[in-house]
């Protein structure tokens, strides 16, 4: 019998998880962040339920500060999958005009993303949400379960997790509680890129190098994606050949100088690179245990 390659095993496991979660929940939803991991997760969902459409909507918790290319990809993904797309913007953050420039990255992330996500899940009474997190991303995630329980207040208790044995997932929960499910738990960054390459999965072009207007700020290259970007005196956007390893709010995403304009080229750069992908994210830099703290509070 042909034995499966590691990517085939990962794919089969993820599909297994997606199906099990859908079969055992009432109102599932997929958190769609438009990034490469979300793209892979969505692709796997289409495979899992084909010829049916994936039987759940996509939820994008919008901050209004994503790259324009990301919004374009979001619409395309919804159109091509035929799935319902729910966009949630925290009305409070919208009213207060929360932005990373005047309010700082911590408050911006908390209001738009952490609070926005809780609001959206409560509003639609979703009892299960798929997320694209991987265990290799960060130390505290290495111990996260595939099926991760959240209290009615959306809190994660790392000391009270259910053991996961074989491929038997216990999905039972009390009313009000919800489950976050991570079908990509066992994928690494390299697996994700290889799979995108192999399966020809559409991704936001920002991952590939191109000439883009950037300014250098606090040691990071920030792209000036629209007219809302407040230039400091003396700052002039310069065109540089850059790409992004992770995508989020454009004022918080650091670009790297690169000429890698194809998938093999960026995989090559990644393999030869010497920093992890999370280094491009401003939110991780506070302290080494910061992600764990955010998770306990309800950040995805």
């Amino acid at each position, binding site marked *: *019998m*042909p*034995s*499966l*390659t*590691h*990517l085939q*095993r*990962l*794919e*089969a*496991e993820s*599909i*297994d998880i997606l*199906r099990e979660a*859908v*079969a055992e929940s009432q109102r599932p939803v997929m958190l769609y962040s438009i990034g490469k991991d979300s793209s892979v997760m969505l692709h796997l969902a289409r*495979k*899992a*339920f*084909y*010829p*049916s459409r994936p039987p759940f909507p996509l939820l994008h918790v919008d901050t209004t500060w994503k790259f324009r290319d990301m919004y374009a990809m979001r619409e395309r993904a919804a159109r091509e999958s035929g799935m319902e797309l729910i966009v949630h913007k925290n009305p409070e953050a919208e009213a207060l005009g929360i932005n990373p420039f005047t309010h700082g990255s911590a408050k911006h992330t908390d209001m738009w993303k952490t609070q926005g996500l809780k609001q959206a899940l409560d509003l639609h009474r979703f009892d299960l949400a798929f997320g694209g997190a991987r*265990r*290799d991303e960060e*130390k*505290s995630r*290495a*111990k996260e379960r595939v099926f991760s329980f959240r209290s009615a207040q959306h809190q994660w208790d*790392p000391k009270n*997790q*259910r*053991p*996961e*044995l*074989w*491929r*038997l997932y*216990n999905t*039972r*929960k*009390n009313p009000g509680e919800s489950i976050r499910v991570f079908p990509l738990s*066992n994928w*690494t960054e*390299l*697996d994700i890129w290889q799979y995108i*390459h*192999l399966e020809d999965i559409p991704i936001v072009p920002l991952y590939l190098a191109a000439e883009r207007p950037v300014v250098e700020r606090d040691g990071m290259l920030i792209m000036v994606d629209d007219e809302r970007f407040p230039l400091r005196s003396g700052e002039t956007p310069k065109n540089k050949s850059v790409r992004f390893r992770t995508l989020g709010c454009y004022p918080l995403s650091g670009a790297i100088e690169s000429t890698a304009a194809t998938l*093999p080229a960026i*995989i*090559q750069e990644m*393999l*030869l*690179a*010497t*920093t*992890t992908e999370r280094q491009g994210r401003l939110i991780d830099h506070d302290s*080494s*245990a910061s992600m*764990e703290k955010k998770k306990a509070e309800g950040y995805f």
Partner: protein
Amino acid sequence: MNTAFQSTDRALIETDIEQYLRTHENKSLLRFITCGSVDDGKSTLIGRMLYEAKALLDDQMSTLDADSKKHGTQGDELDFALLVDGLSAEREQGITIDVAYRFFSTDKRKFIVADTPGHEQYTRNMVTGASTADLAVILIDARKGVLTQTRRHSYLVSLVGIKHVVLAVNKLDLVGYSEQVFNEIDREYRAFIERLDGSIERVTSIPMAALRGDNIAEASTNTPWYTGPNLLEFLENVEIAASSTNAPLRMPVQWVNRPNLDFRGFSGRILGGSVKPGDAIRVLPSGKTSTVARIVSLDGDKAQGVSGESVTLTLADEIDISRGDVISSAHDPAGLADQFEATIAWLDETPMLPGRAYLVKTGASTVGGSISKPKYVVEVNTLDRLVAKTLNVNEVGVCTLTLDRAIAFDPYADNRDMGSFIVIDRLSNHTIAAGTIHFALRRSQNIHWQALEVDKAARARLNGHKPCVLWFTGLSGSGKSTIANLVERKLHALGVRTYLLDGDNVRHGLNKDLGFTAPDRIENIRRIGEVAKLMVDAGLIVLTAFISPFRSERKLARDMVGAGEFVEIFVDTSLAVVEARDPKGLYKKARRGELKNFTGIDSPYEAPDAPELHLETEKLNAEAAADSIVAELRARGVLGLHA
């Protein structure tokens, strides 16, 4: 260092990335666990493997460097253990308390490591990590040799069916890289494995010093007497038997795929064998047969599906299949049974209660079931078989598992996925145990309930009212029987068919073999629940008046009948009041110690969280209480023509 894998990789990445990708796409995957205690240097070993396989990048190295200075235990040296001790609570305690998964790859393989703790109270984490592993790395501190925990880890590894063990004899630098020490440990361990007589077929002992990197990624000059493979070399090359082509097909149906009326597919993961269009299949438990028509996928129909793949099948015939059914080879179908001998590892702080109604998940089905008193418990340190009444947390025992209905299964030794199960508590929803099936104790011969033409609905029409259970619960002397009797009289006067089950007609007959211990109380309520269920099926309004102190059994009784057919009535009278009333003098006897296991005195009463009716008898007399129950039935539309 580590020239063996990394340099060729790097050269290929630089010169021909496309070729590298093609090679990497065809890598296999090995999952393994590491077992040992903090003191054996387990986290250090994993950290060292990540480091040697170049799975660490500059910023991780600089974080490690900073963390080593802050929390490290290795002076100015890098403390590799900090790489894998993820949660801050653990860092403070300085121990790993959970299963963590790590990833790295070499030229030939991708690896997923389950890092599992060695402390006694965390056996559950080791069983968890081992359940998905192909191989185990068991650490030994060369200074200490084979310890109790080594034997325990090996037993647990064997329990989950792992065949390959690497014995990592670590900290050899602290015994002067002594060949003699290594050989003695190797010999002692092999003798133990022989005695264990479990699944472990192959042991490979490697001398190492993880802190210094000896024999991790290349042959160490400190152990010239050792000619075997280094650890990573061994892990890269060890052959893991894929399940054989001849294994029979097993595919539990996870999801029925019905995009429209013309398509009916069955989605699931192949847990054994392979499948091709035209193959004859048998569906269990129904026993119906058909042939596979197509293997449908987003990328077009497939010619074959193999073990481990997630697929969607369509069949040539329209047969009724639902989630939890197992599609299996027609020539060699899975077994079908509802009672098994099984090994069970207890994972929860609350001990097992023999006879209690739990939920059991296996494959894609979850069914009710209960566990017998253990035949024996295995003392995991000595492997002695001990007599026991229950299973406590981290204990392993052999028990009889009885399910509410038959399921498709294979013995665990034949198929890990078809012979494993988890046990879930109905109230807490926790995963409280994990088990492996040895064999069926009672074969089920395709028992089907006859579809009766005269059913519950037909009887309800004839009676002119709906059936239900009025389940009274409360302390002894709270007034359950008094109120139930009044309600029955009022209903009878309305022309409703009723039956009252109480201590007099149940304890003296059906249940006269039962006492008042917790297991007997559970069995008492289970039988009453079953009788009530039959009577509901017969169309009656059944009144039950028992203390029924445990939530779990009340829930069991509730789950036996249809939604809306169970009305839980909490007759709420405080202990002080019932003790003062004490109509039969029972509380005085219990207080004097003449009555054991008396609810409220030396046995707990678990009040209902959300009863349909909550009657506070200190505010309401029996007559008014009975009237409120009849009013409730009227409001629920139960009384029909007799309202």
